[in-house]
């Protein structure tokens, strides 16, 4: 079940949770991720969907959060990672098509793995629980089908 052990998962998850919690306790802001795309698009698109007051108000904060994520992962790579910098071998078309569906789907669903998964579940939202069950179930089925038809890696 855990070929790589459970320690990196537990410690990594707790660290991520401490980051989200620190932000919430200090500012009341839920450090969720998929809104980053919509908020950032408010800088370049005049559409009403992006120009909502909440997007304008939060866009700088969401950009700062995203920069923090990159710095944190960079710090881990430089300080602790045994293998250093790393590139995925998952095929580019999968990253592109998958990314498109992730961007569209998370915005339609108003949340992603962090929005529904971390903050939503932590807030005991039943809506988020349903969302997590649905996207995780669909992702498990999809990943297995893709593997079954021999798309590697």
């Amino acid at each position: 079940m855990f070929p790589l052990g459970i320690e990196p998962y537990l410690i990594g998850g707790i660290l991520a949770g401490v980051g989200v919690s620190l932000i919430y306790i200090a500012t009341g802001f839920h450090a969720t991720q998929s809104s980053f795309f919509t908020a950032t698009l408010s800088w370049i698109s005049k559409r009403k969907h992006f120009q909502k007051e909440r997007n304008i108000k939060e866009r700088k904060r969401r950009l700062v959060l995203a920069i923090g994520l990159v710095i944190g992962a960079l710090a881990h790579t430089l300080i602790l990672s045994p293998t250093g910098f790393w590139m995925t071998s998952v095929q580019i078309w999968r990253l592109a098509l998958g990314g498109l569906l992730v961007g569209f789907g998370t915005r339609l669903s108003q949340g992603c793995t962090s929005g529904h998964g971390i903050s939503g579940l932590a807030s005991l939202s039943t809506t988020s629980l349903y969302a997590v069950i649905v996207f995780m179930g669909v992702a498990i089925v999809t990943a297995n089908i893709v593997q079954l038809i021999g798309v590697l890696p």
Partner: protein
Amino acid sequence: MNKQNIVVLIGGILFGFGLAYSGMTKQEIVLSFLQLKDLGLILVLGGAAAVTFLAVNIVPRYLKTPLLGGAFKPRRRILSRNLIVGAIIFGIGWGLSGQCPGSAVASLGTGNLYVLVGLAAMFIGAYLRGVLEK
């Protein structure tokens, strides 16, 4: 940068460090979870949600407002058809690519420049959502 954003940056750094530490920045590890070969992702999500549960539900009992002002408000969404359809579409994309928004952003910090393609596609997807909104 104001005080709030400094805390957001520090929290974001912890978040990104944790994602990298747990291996969630690697699409291969996420996919091995979705193929049910390595269930670690549940521990990451569960660990992060458990800590955040304390922050959202316990801390406000002792603290009236956030330390730097504002208000505590649990994250709630209203169940709708769109929300579930969106979750299905997200699930297909996640299962196909092993990328989700947070892990993809953090993955950049590991030197995984290919994920820029995934991130650009996520922006396009989020834009299409805006275009299609009635």
